Each structure stands twice: as structure tokens, then as C-alpha cells.
């Protein structure tokens, strides 16, 4: 066994051992502990857990790679996936915590005094969470197959086993404490290579500052200026100004991600675990601190990875790398098929340009940038091993949070709340565990047989949350008179418009060939890409809801009193464990 593999085994199985130990220590004994960790998590702990819950395989592995190739256009992910926390902290979390229930559908059902509203929310929640979880399962499989050189399937089974153990046993309590450990693992794994690379390139070890510094090669040129020059020389778009679509598309995309973030149930749920309204507000702040630690480093990782990649292939302008002398990481990633070279002009050298007819780097998968980054920069093997453990921590922690959101909405909302309300707590706890086990198997099955629409799913998850759940929650809190009919009509309209738009451009259920308008920017509504359409769906939702409200009876007095009660932190604070 070589040294890298040895370190990787230690890092991966060492961290897994830690998660197991935590799971045994933090078993859940009651439904309150299972759904909301007994309401006894401190804001700091909760912030860390939210950080791990939120930062998925997409944040850890894909985002910096996307930024590396999109440049300025990649900013939509940075702003979109952080700005939602401002909305959560001010507009949603405190009041939903005050209301004191376990789940998002329960809140919607109470506020809009309607079973139908609750069921619509359950459906939105399950579709959003399931689509999201497929990506996490794939992430687990890929990380295992690349780093431990086991089969993708085997990797997936190991991942399922680990999640099964701590999520089913510990519920929200076990998941929360495990996520705290996973946060520490993932942030260390993300930051250490970034610090090394920033120091190598600019002499400044802090990546956020390194990105704005001059290169350490003595030229006195700023890193970003050099990068702009290198990429434009080869015909690529200028790194620091290239937009993603037009300005309107970037605007809508950022807004969709922000309100989608604020509407994703597995994140909102975490605010039910803290003891008070005050703690809910503080949690959002701490969560963003921990998220920002990664999100402000990511642009540095992206830009520096791009720079290193370009520099490896063409160390000085016109002097291209001999294919025979390509470095080891190049060979490793070629084996995975994520990196492909084709010597079009037969000169034995690598030409990497924006022009498809002369470009010889036929395939450079964006996802490899973070994983290959330490090797590209010649960092020691233990750093590379750490990145493997970090990627797995990111994927597993998000998968666990999503599984909990799914299982609580089925066992607590659908079974206990609607179908069999006289279930005892013990039965409910057991049901919760069974539902979670089934969800893990289902998610694993989807990970093994990714449906054709896997690529579009993350966009769909955000679009759904943005166009259905977020507006319903906002109107429930900020409008005392919004009634059941308005909310339900709004959710259905927002959801319908968004899905229609996504399907007409990406195919019905993403089946190729069924898209009746074509996936061409020219056909997009005002140039807004399907991924960015959740914001438009949300506007439709709000408009329809208020029109319907005008034509029907406003919410009755007891609902207005309920709203007044959760708007104020005083008075009776419903304790989670009284339910």
C-alpha cells in the first residue's frame, strides 16, 4: 500500500470511528430528541451543525470548480447560498421557533388552519429533499472510488451504513453532534490546502487576502490581473468580469438561491433545536460565520486552481507542456475519465484554448478542481488524504439532515398528524426510525441508479423551495389576514409555473427529447435560465395568493391571535417536548 492510500485510510476511517462514538453517546430516547434534539442545543453548536448540514458535496467539491471556470459569474453561488441566512435570521427562524413545533409542514398546517396546505407542503418538502439527496449519495460514491480505489457501489454501501448507524440511532440529537464533528473535519480539510496554495502563489497564507495580493514570483503583478491575462490570451472570457448569462439572469439566479436557501426545510428545521427565540436569531448568525469560513475561501481556491492548471499546461506563453512529461495527478485523473487529452495537431504538446477546433484538453470536469487541487500544487500526501475525509463529511452530514427532514415529515406530519393521530410516542419514535431506514435504502437505490434528471435536480430542489415553501412562510408570518385558500393557490401556482418552465426547457421529468421549447438561451424568458426561475415562481406565488385573498374571507380571529403570539417572543413559549 502506498503512502497516500495509507493516510487516506487513516483519515477516512478515523473520522468514521469518531462519528460512531458520538452516535452511541448521543442516542435519542424521545420523539422530541429524535426530531429536535430536545430543544437543548446551544446557538454556537447549532450554528456549526447548520454549517455542516448546509454545506453539501456541492459546496465542498463542486462550487470552487464552478467558480474556477465561471470567474465572476460564479458569484451567484457565493451570494445566493449565503444571503438566504439574512432572510432566515430576520424573517423566518425566530417566529417559527416561537411557534414551537417540530416541522415545517406542521407550521404551515397550523398557520393556514388547513390539512391541504400541510399536505402540499409535505409534497414540496419530499420532492425537494429527495432530489437533493441523490447528489449527496453520488458524492459519497465518487469520493470513495477516487480516493480508496474501491468500486463506486461499495463506497455507496459503506456511506449508507455509516449514515444508517448514526441517523437512525440518534435522530436529530445524534445527527447534530455528529455534524459538529463533521464541520470541524470539513473546514479543516478545505482550509489547509487553500492556505498552502495561497502562501505558495502569493506569500500570503490567508486565502481571502492572497486572492487580492501580488504574485510571489517577484513580478509585482496582482494574481487576478495575471489570471485575466492568461485566460484571455487563450481566448477564454476575462476571469474577473465574465457574466453568467446577462445581468438579469445573475440577479434572478442569486435571488432564487437566496430564497431557496431560506425555504429549504432541512435548514429551517434546525432552528427548532435551540431553546429560545433569542437563540434562534443567534444561531443564524453563528451558522453564517461557519459557512462564510468556507465561502470566502472558495473564490480563492477557484481562482488559484485555475491559475495553477493553466500554468502547468503552459508555464510560459507559447511553451506548452509535453504530454509525455505530464504530472502524476494528470495521469490519475485521466484514468477516471474526468480529464481527457487528444493530440489534435500531433505535436506531442498540450494546447488548452477556448477554441473547440484547436483545444486539446477535450474534457476538464469542473468537479475535479477541489479534489485535484492539492496534487496540482504538490502538497504533501496527508493533505490530500484530509480532503477525502472532508468531502465525505460534507456529503454525509447533508444526507443525514435531509433524511431527517424526510422521515419527520412522513412519520410526524403524514402519519401522526393526518392518518393515525392516536399513535403513542413510542410507536412514533419507532415509525420515525423505520421511515428513515427506508429513506436511506431509497436514497442509496437512487445513488446506484441515478435517474436521467440527476444533473438538473439541485436546481429543481432550490426552485421548488423558492417558489412554494418560502412565499408561504413569509405570508404566514408577515400577513395576519392571509388565508388558507390564498396560501394553497399561491403554492400550487408558484410550483406549477417553476416546474413548467424547467420541464419545457429541460424535458418533462428531464427526459431528453421531451422539451418542447428547447434548452437554448434564445428561448429563455427575458434570458432567465431554468435554474434561476425559482424567483419568478415566487413572484407568481405571492401575486396569486393575494388575488385569491381579495376574493375570499380573510383568516379568522384565532389565527390572527396565533400570528400575534408568534410575532412576540414573550408570553407562552411552546416547548418542543410538550408535544
Amino acid at each position: 500500500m502506498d503512502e497516500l492510500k495509507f493516510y487516506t485510510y487513516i483519515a477516512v476511517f478515523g473520522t468514521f470511528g469518531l462519528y460512531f462514538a458520538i452516535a452511541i453517546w448521543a442516542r435519542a430516547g424521545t420523539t422530541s430528541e429524535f426530531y429536535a434534539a430536545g430543544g437543548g442545543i446551544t446557538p454556537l453548536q447549532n450554528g456549526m451543525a447548520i454549517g455542516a448540514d448546509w454545506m453539501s458535496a456541492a459546496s465542498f467539491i463542486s462550487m470552487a470548480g464552478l467558480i474556477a471556470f465561471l470567474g465572476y459569474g460564479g458569484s451567484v453561488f457565493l451570494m445566493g447560498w449565503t444571503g438566504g441566512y439574512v432572510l432566515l435570521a430576520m424573517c423566518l427562524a425566530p417566529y417559527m421557533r416561537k411557534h414551537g413545533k417540530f416541522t415545517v409542514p406542521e407550521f404551515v398546517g397550523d398557520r393556514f388552519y388547513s390539512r391541504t396546505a400541510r399536505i402540499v407542503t409535505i409534497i414540496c418538502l419530499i420532492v425537494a429533499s429527495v432530489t437533493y439527496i441523490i447528489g449527496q449519495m453520488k458524492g459519497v460514491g465518487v469520493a470513495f472510488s477516487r480516493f480508496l480505489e474501491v468500486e463506486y457501489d461499495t463506497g455507496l454501501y459503506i456511506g449508507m451504513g455509516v449514515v444508517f448507524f448514526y441517523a437512525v440511532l440518534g435522530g436529530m440529537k445524534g445527527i447534530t453532534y455528529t455534524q459538529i464533528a463533521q464541520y470541524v473535519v470539513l473546514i479543516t480539510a478545505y482550509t489547509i490546502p487553500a492556505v498552502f496554495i495561497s502562501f505558495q502563489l502569493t506569500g500570503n497564507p490567508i486565502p481571502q487576502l492572497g486572492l487580492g495580493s501580488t504574485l510571489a514570483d517577484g513580478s509585482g503583478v496582482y494574481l487576478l490581473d495575471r489570471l485575466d491575462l492568461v485566460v484571455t490570451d487563450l481566448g477564454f472570457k476575462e476571469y474577473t468580469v465574465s457574466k453568467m448569462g446577462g445581468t438579469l439572469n445573475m440577479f434572478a439566479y442569486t435571488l432564487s438561491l437566496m430564497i431557496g436557501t431560506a425555504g429549504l426545510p432541512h435548514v429551517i428545521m434546525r432552528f427548532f433545536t435551540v431553546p429560545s427565540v433569542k437563540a434562534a436569531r443567534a444561531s443564524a448568525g453563528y451558522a453564517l460565520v461557519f459557512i462564510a469560513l468556507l465561502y470566502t475561501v472558495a473564490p480563492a481556491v477557484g481562482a488559484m486552481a485555475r491559475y495553477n492548471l493553466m500554468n502547468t499546461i503552459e508555464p510560459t506563453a507559447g511553451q506548452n507542456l509535453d504530454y509525455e512529461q505530464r504530472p502524476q495527478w494528470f495521469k490519475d485523473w485521466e484514468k477516471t475519465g474526468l480529464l481527457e487529452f487528444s493530440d489534435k495537431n500531433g505535436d506531442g504538446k498540450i494546447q488548452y484554448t477556448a477554441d473547440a477546433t484547436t483545444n486539446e484538453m477535450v474534457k476538464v470536469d469542473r468537479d475535479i478542481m477541489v479534489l485535484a487541487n492539492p496534487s496540482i500544487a504538490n502538497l504533501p500526501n496527508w493533505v490530500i488524504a484530509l480532503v477525502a475525509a472532508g468531502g465525505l463529511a460534507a456529503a454525509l452530514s447533508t444526507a443525514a439532515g435531509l433524511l431527517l427532514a424526510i422521515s419527520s415529515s412522513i412519520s410526524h406530519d403524514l402519519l401522526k398528524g393526518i392518518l393515525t393521530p392516536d399513535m403513542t410516542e413510542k410507536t412514533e419514535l419507532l415509525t420515525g426510525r423505520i421511515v428513515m431506514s427506508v429513506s436511506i435504502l431509497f436514497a442509496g437505490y437512487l445513488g446506484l441508479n441515478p435517474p436521467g434528471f440527476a444533473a438538473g435536480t439541485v436546481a429543481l430542489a432550490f426552485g421548488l423551495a423558492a417558489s412554494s415553501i418560502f412565499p408561504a412562510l413569509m405570508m404566514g408570518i408577515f400577513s395576519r389576514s392571509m388565508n388558507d385558500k390564498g396560501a394553497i393557490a399561491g403554492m400550487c401556482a408558484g410550483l406549477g409555473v417553476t416546474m413548467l418552465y424547467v420541464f419545457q426547457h429541460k424535458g418533462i421529468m428531464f427526459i431528453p427529447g421531451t422539451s418542447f421549447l428547447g434548452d437554448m438561451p434564445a428561448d429563455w424568458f427575458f434570458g432567465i435560465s431554468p435554474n434561476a426561475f425559482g424567483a419568478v415562481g415566487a413572484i407568481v406565488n405571492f401575486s396569486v395568493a393575494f388575488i385569491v385573498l381579495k376574493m375570499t374571507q380573510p383568516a379568522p380571529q384565532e389565527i390572527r391571535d396565533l400570528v400575534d403570539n408568534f410575532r412576540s417572543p414573550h408570553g407562552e413559549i411552546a416547548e418542543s417536548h410538550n408535544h
Partner: protein
Amino acid sequence: MENKNTYWQENLRLILICLVIWFVVSFGFGILLVDELNEFRLGGYKLGFWFAQQGSIYAFLGLIFWYSKKMNALDEKYDVE
């Protein structure tokens, strides 16, 4: 009831102030005015680019903590218990 109403009004005013800043730093500086701001620099960063990839996130952080602090003070002011 009187108290509750003014508490909520003050809360709404705070939220509005925060959301205006939230909008200006991200959608304003980071997207709508990015080309204009890129004329200025912050070290090696073009200013608009910096807001989009760094500055807006720091501003979000500041906003949440400022709002929390203000709301805690408001909670105490209206504490009727």
C-alpha cells in the same frame, strides 16, 4: 396589545433597514453596479468583483449580528413580564 403593536412596528423597521443594506451590497454592488465599481480597486481586487465574491458575505454577517443585538435590546425594552 398596544405594546405588542409597537414592538412589531419597530421590528419591521429594523428588518427593512437590514434588507435595504442586504440588497444594496449584493444585488446592487455585486450585480447591477458591478461594471461601474470595477473601475475602482481594492488591492488586487476589482471593487465590484470583491463585493460579489467577498464583501457581500461579510456584510451579511454584520447584518445578522447587528439585528440580533438590536432585537435583544428591543425584547428587554418591551418585556412586560
